[in-house]
């Protein structure tokens, strides 16, 4: 039997703020346990929350970024449950009236088309702390540094029918929120965590099956694998006539399986009610307009523009655009060098390879956009052959100055002077009479192959500086005249 998978996603996005959503503690990642948890974050007696304006602004920015309706009066609620990493015994969230209401997010697929996903809502809430299980033999350690970090929970309708769509959505979402500057998007540090609601149904059926929820998947690769593994599990149960239990599951990357979460066994009743320590957030049109004015160009628009303005390929655009910094870098190089296609090749080729090798992001590149554009310009104007350009690139990477300085210092200039080149060609022909004889005797196809030998000799003699196009031309003329 064939099963259709139906999924909705809930993404917990850490918003990029200096301080926490309800306290003045730092949100910086990686501090010693509990040094970034003040009395509010620890839920100490008598402590009260005060809302961070930047968190509100980020939420509204997101809402406008996907064209969603903004809740003009949104309210915080308490979600009540006990867990050691939840200091107050409730999480302050938005249940009844979220700050971002329904919207549509257009996800670019690999084939270039857009796949619309319905966003149900996005609401502000505080993050919980962390439980550390492996530090102590018989106890669990609680670190509340993360408690109170502002989150935006983005909830979709059950609009996904494949793991690929889900991953495409998450990648596009990641791209959008980093463009908007509302999150650092650092998945390794948990800035974007995904809950996946999965159910299966018979192909062609309209009814939804019983769903499970896979919690806290924090990489694109794991999302894909978790979905596949959960699909297999549910399909196997359904195939033998079994029933799916509605439950929360955890993806175990080591085993590549999902398993039921024991800690969630006690049925939860979250008892949401309006948080009396906070008042309604009122957002007026003027505020919304001001945020709208400050919206940057978004990925979809940038992609269109790159195609039209720079003539890059769809494929190159799909690699350049998602990372905002990469797109900016490209645009700087393309503008300064006036050679967009070449700029894209260098960035997506040698530069990306080198960055990957050294595990650096584009913003950490030792070669600035200005310096790369210097290199691209010298390739474009014929000063550098591609072979020489690679040498210059390596020197740029080592920080030996800008492209022109390196060319001058190493004497790497491509030799395009025809009399100098002619002398080289003549010399090589004179020094290799056997090969010349072979060439003359050979047919058209073989001649092409043999001419490579002469080019190689000349490049070697010129230490790679000879202009290869001109060498080819001259060599052909000389050899033809011999025959």
């Amino acid at each position: 039997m064939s099963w259709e998978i139906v999924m909705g996603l809930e993404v917990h996005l850490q918003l990029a703020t200096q301080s926490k959503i309800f306290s003045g503690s730092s949100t910086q990642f990686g501090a010693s346990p509990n040094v970034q948890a003040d009395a509010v974050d620890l839920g100490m007696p008598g402590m009260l929350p005060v809302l961070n304006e930047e968190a509100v602004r980020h939420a509204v920015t997101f809402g406008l970024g996907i064209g969603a309706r903004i809740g003009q009066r949104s309210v915080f609620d308490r979600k009540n449950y006990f867990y050691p990493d939840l200091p107050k015994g409730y999480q302050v969230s938005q249940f009844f009236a979220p700050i971002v209401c329904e919207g549509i997010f257009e996800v670019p697929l690999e084939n270039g088309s857009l796949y619309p996903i319905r966003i149900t809502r996005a609401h502000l809430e505080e993050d919980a702390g962390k439980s550390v299980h492996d530090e102590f033999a018989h106890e669990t350690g609680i670190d509340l540094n993360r408690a109170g970090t502002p989150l935006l929970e983005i909830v979709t309708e059950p609009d996904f029918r494949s793991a690929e769509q889900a991953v495409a959505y998450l990648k596009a979402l990641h791209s959008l929120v980093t463009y908007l500057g509302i999150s650092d998007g650092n998945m390794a540090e948990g800035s974007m965590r995904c809950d996946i609601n999965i159910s299966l149904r018979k192909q062609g059926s309209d009814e939804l099956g019983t769903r499970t929820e896979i919690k806290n998947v924090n990489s694109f690769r794991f999302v894909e694998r978790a979905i596949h593994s959960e699909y297999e599990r549910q399909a196997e149960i359904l195939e033998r006539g079994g029933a799916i239990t509605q439950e929360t599951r955890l993806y175990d990357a080591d085993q590549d399986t999902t398993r039921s979460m024991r800690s969630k066994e006690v049925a939860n009743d979250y008892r949401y009610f309006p948080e009396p320590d906070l008042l309604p957030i009122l957002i007026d049109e003027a505020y919304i307009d001001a945020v709208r004015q400050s919206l940057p160009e978004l990925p979809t628009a940038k992609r269109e523009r790159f195609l039209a303005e720079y003539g890059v390929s769809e494929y190159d655009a799909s690699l350049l655009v998602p990372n905002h910094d990469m797109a900016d870098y490209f645009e700087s190089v393309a503008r300064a060098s006036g050679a967009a296609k070449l700029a894209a090749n260098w960035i997506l080729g040698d530069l990306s390879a080198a960055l990957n090798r050294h595990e650096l992001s584009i913003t950490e590149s030792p070669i600035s956009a200005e310096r790369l554009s210097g290199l691209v310009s010298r390739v474009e104007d014929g000063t550098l052959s591609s072979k020489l350009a690679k040498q210059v690139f390596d020197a740029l990477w080592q920080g030996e100055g800008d492209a022109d300085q390196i060319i001058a210092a190493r004497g790497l200039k491509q030799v395009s002077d025809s009399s100098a080149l002619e002398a080289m060609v003549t010399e090589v022909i004179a020094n290799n009479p056997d090969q010349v004889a072979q060439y003359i005797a050979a047919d058209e196809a073989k001649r092409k192959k043999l001419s490579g030998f002469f080019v190689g000799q000349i490049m070697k003699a010129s230490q790679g500086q000879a202009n290869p196009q001109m060498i080819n031309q001259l060599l052909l003329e000389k050899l033809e005249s011999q025959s």
Partner: protein
Amino acid sequence: MAENALLTAPVSKLKQLLGDGTVSSEELTKAYLAQIAAENASLNAVVTVCAEEALASAREADAQIARGTTRSLTGIPLLHKDIFCTEGVRTTCGSRMLESFVPAYDATVVTKMKAEGAVMLGKCNMDEFAMGSSNETSFFGPVKNPWNLSCVPGGSSGGSAAALASGMAPLVTGTDTGGSIRQPASLCGVTGLKPTYGRVSRLGIIAFASSLDQAGPMARTAEDCALALTAMSGIDPGDSTSADISVPDFHSALSTDVNGLRIGLPREYFNDDLDSRVRENVMAALAELERAGAILHDIDLPHSHYAIATYYVIAPAEASANLARYDGVRFGYRCDAPADLEDLYQRSRSEGFGEEVQRRILVGTYALSAGFYDAYFNKAQQVRRVITEDFQRAFEHVDVIAGPAAPGVAFPFGSKQQDPIAMYMEDIYTLAVNLAGLPGLSTPAGLIDGMPVGLQLIGKPFDEQTILNAAFRLQNDTDWHLACPDLASLSS
């Protein structure tokens, strides 16, 4: 001045004595500390005494007086209800749960009183987590009423009221979620003011029901309450619900002029259920105000009846969440040798909380749980608006609403403890004021069989001045507020 007279003098008088050098703050502080030492064993009104710190700040106050750099309460001794967090000083909230909890911060009220120069003597006993009307729910034992040691002082600020009435301090703080300042003030014969919700910051006050809690002063006179209210009030960036509204100098604006003041008497308060002797005393006090030029009107607060039901859904519901943080993990009581996490939670909480607190947590949890939210919590929030609108309509015609502060005088220990409902009825005249967020005060209105009874005056939102003025005039024309229990007979 005789020791005894110092102990019963109002703050306004003490300020004068400090100012003209008749007495030093150190002398005053020693006198009150001595009174606490002498009487607390029988009254149990104070749970923590800070003698050293108090004497140090008294000496600092004396230095300021000498330099002429005084503030509104410089050198005045003060006791805080043990619900206000005090940095470095144990804050118990009357609970085993916080028996050894030492906050790393001061409540805003504590900071403000300190900044005004007040000298903190210690912390007052109270009903556990402010849940109670008799001070019998405290983990540290019941507080006795100084007027009759076999009777309760009221609650939950019963320790504060008893300490004030017995001369342990001239000024005390309390909190009032459903009557916890006004009812004990009534039962102990002192003046107690619950300000408008939002007037005083809640930051650092251990929460009971966040949308109802409000801190206020208790003192011997309305004048002292005005002085203390000015010191305590004001917007606090750390409390989102504190009101961004200017704070008048309530003390300098005090006036005895009540000519033409319209006082509304709700028919629902003065009905056949009201104890006839309480009615007599309350009406006698109102007659005094009438003589001074006030006009009495009968008014209707038609939904008053629903206040108890509404309150006993909203307050426990909010409390059930506010008290979830007491889980034995980060601070407070933890049970011995927990077998696992669930055991840690359940035993820490059921051993750390007393019976009344647990009952309210259960009721509140129930009222919010799946299937009951609409019938209980949401419904109560709707009725809360209906009750509030009753007041709004009434205040279109009157300036002040008057009634009893409590249904009777102080009652004997144990007489209502077995029946939660009987105890809840103690606040029948005060709860609605919290639901509507209005200011209310209780001022002494004579004695019934030697026990005090209070007149409650309720004002419009942020109009504490008008009810303070009315009480000020009443205290100007009568001497009910000067009645004191016989301090000499207390320890015997």
